[in-house]
């Protein structure tokens, strides 16, 4: 067993709060972020509920200090990454090899989709500044600049597992001795592009989503960002960081079943979880809480549940999906849920699966429905699965 890479800082922003503390408080008081659309300009306002970050771009820029004209993706990323960095003790000294590992699926689409109708009418009109940050990698570079990180700036895009993969990549870079510290996670802003895309797939619930419920009816989209600060033991000691927990297991596997649907037996999810357990040298019984991918679609929850059954039967750990609070934040979800997983270990929390009422008939387990405090949580398994068959699992462990 390897000793793991230390987690020394956390930062998140989503529909349930502008930082980690606010988010936990919202979960504890049962206040989901999923509401009527307020900021996104779309014809689905009032029709499809989403979990928006409850600030406009000017206000977001006010928190992190970035230019408000930048993409919402960059602004959301900057707020959460800055929180994580400050939590870990602030800027890294120059001799420390630091990396910024982010992830997203939309890049600067929020600006591009405002630019594009103008461009379609006249190919010589529309401000190019609106599309200059369209690439996914652009938001990462902007925020890395703000954080004072120049080397190892990486952006991953594997749909809904994007930020789990960026955390995994960062942990492996530190373990290989190529880096001392890293800020890792991901971000996504809500766009008409994604809202309409998911709507064509007919997997958006017009009501509040009900992950892992027999009568679930689809997902609610969300937006936000989540980052963890990872450090080698040596770097954490040298920088006087206070470790929160460690990341001991990770694995990335492919379902190789369908571009968007998950396989009935959850092969990809099974391999992801199994590989993470094996790397952490843990038995299923060592897991005290699973933060489910749990989108609330028929397909995901059936597939993920089947994979969980294959691994954990007959004794199931506590589990829940926090997506009924945050919405499915796509490229940010792995990062946000990593932050919640680390807080689970640190504070002994188990989060309720909001809106749950009826157990899925075919499964012998069901999610937790009450907020629990003061639990001993030794290891948390966090799942992130996505389009393209991309399945990733992370394990965070107490120190």
């Amino acid at each position, binding site marked *: 067993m390897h000793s793991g890479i230390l987690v020394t800082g956390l930062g998140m922003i989503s529909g349930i709060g502008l930082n980690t503390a606010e988010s936990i408080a919202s979960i504890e008081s049962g206040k989901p972020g999923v509401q009527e659309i307020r900021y996104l300009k779309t014809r689905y306002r009032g029709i499809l509920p989403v979990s928006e970050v409850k600030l406009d771009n000017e206000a977001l820029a006010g928190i992190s200090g970035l230019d408000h004209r930048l993409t919402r993706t960059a602004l959301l990323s900057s707020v959460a990454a800055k929180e994580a960095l400050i939590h870990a003790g602030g800027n890294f000294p120059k001799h420390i090899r630091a990396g910024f590992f982010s992830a997203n699926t939309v890049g600067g689409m929020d600006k*591009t989709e405002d630019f594009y109708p103008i461009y379609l009418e006249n190919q010589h009109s529309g401000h190019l500044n609106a599309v200059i940050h369209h690439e996914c990698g652009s938001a990462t570079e902007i925020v890395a600049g703000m954080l004072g990180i120049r080397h190892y700036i990486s952006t991953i895009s594997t749909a809904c597992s994007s930020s789990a993969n960026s955390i995994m990549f960062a942990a*492996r*870079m530190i373990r290989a001795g190529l880096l001392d510290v890293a800020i890792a996670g991901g971000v996504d802003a809500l766009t008409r592009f994604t809202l309409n895309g998911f709507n064509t797939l007919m997997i958006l619930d017009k009501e509040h989503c009900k992950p892992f419920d027999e009568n679930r009816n689809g997902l609610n989209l969300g937006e936000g960002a989540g980052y963890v600060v990872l450090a080698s033991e040596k770097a954490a000691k040298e920088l006087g960081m206070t470790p929160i927990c460690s990341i001991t297991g990770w694995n990335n596997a492919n379902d190789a079943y369908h*571009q968007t649907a998950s396989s009935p037996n959850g092969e990809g999810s099974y391999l992801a979880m199994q590989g993470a357990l094996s790397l952490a040298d843990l038995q299923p019984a060592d897991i005290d809480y699973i933060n489910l991918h749990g989108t609330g679609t028929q397909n995901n929850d059936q597939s993920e549940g089947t994979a969980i059954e294959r691994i954990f039967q007959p004794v199931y750990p506590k589990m829940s999906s926090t997506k009924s609070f945050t919405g499915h934040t796509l490229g940010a979800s792995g990062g946000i849920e990593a932050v919640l997983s680390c807080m689970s270990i640190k504070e002994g929390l188990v989060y309720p699966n909001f809106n749950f009422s009826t157990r899925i008939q075919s499964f012998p387990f069901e999610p937790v429905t009450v907020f629990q405090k003061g639990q001993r949580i030794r290891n948390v398994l966090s799942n992130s699965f*996505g389009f*393209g068959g991309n399945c990733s699992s992370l394990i965070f462990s107490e120190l």
Partner: protein
Amino acid sequence: MKLYIQGTGAVSPVQSYDAGLFEQDFSPKTVRRLVCEEPDYSSIIDVKLIRRMSKVIKIGVAAANFALKEAGIDMPDAILTGTAYGCLEDTTLFLNRLIGNQEEMLTPTAFIQSTHNTVGGQIALLMHNHGYNNTFVSRGFSFEMAMLDAHLLLQEGKADTVLVGGVDESTDVQFHLLERMGLFRRNPVSTAALISDPQKGTICGEGAAFFVMGKEKNAHSLAQVKAFSMIFQPESSEEVRNQIRSLISEQGLEVSDIDLLLIGKNGDRRSDPVYDDVLDPIFPGMAKGYFKHLSGEYPTASSFALWLAGNIFNKRKLPDCLLLEGKVNQPLRNILIYNHSNQIHHTLYLISAV
């Protein structure tokens, strides 16, 4: 670095499969934008699937297929893709309809295929590969990050063979927008004269290049990636030079051991001087080769340069059209690739004969 190229495959604006570039004479084109010479996909992909696939998926899947074939394997342990732009054609298609239909009556296919991991996901799906699968979208470092992940996987013992590639497509909208930003030549230029007559702007390009990488030399090994490196927004040419010097010396080599510099000059007078400025003080009079007159400029073009270097060793031949200046030391043992993308992302590879 224990990193061997066991197989290569490319689809690019020059014929880079079958009897391609290495057997045929180079025929210059007069263009502002180079597009891929695409193979007959029907021998590679199910005909029913081809129709639904956009260009970036097809060239990616085909290049991956060529690389696996050359390496003599059909199931790599991991699949890694680097793409700065992702699936532009499907993204544009979905955006057009979204705007045209005012968010109504949309169909999912273009959206489904617009996600950046579509190429890597499709490669896995077509061969039922359950292994590690990752997609990097780190602009001009997208391919290098994928290669770095490949290197880590091999080091960790997590994989014996890794399929890794760089792919980007050019679309009408992307070309036109980058043109408005001033990236391209105003008038068509002969690709034979692109570098010799530098002006403002370059030519747009696209392509896919995939590699099977392993950590042991085997019968299929055609070259070794001894080292590679990324420098983000270097503060000076000296910073890049220092990186080059340490890249070479860490391999126990001398500057004089480099036989060819393969550089990313693209005919843009604003950014081409960087190459000579960085390299000439270290390598005075050294032979220089180039490749962007074949590939055009795109963010993962360094993968095409690596494909060229691999094939120069594999075929023991340096096509005349690659040589920019100087005389190449024979036999060719070490090639240094130096590319930069808009002076922001600088990449270096040290490739050696096996």
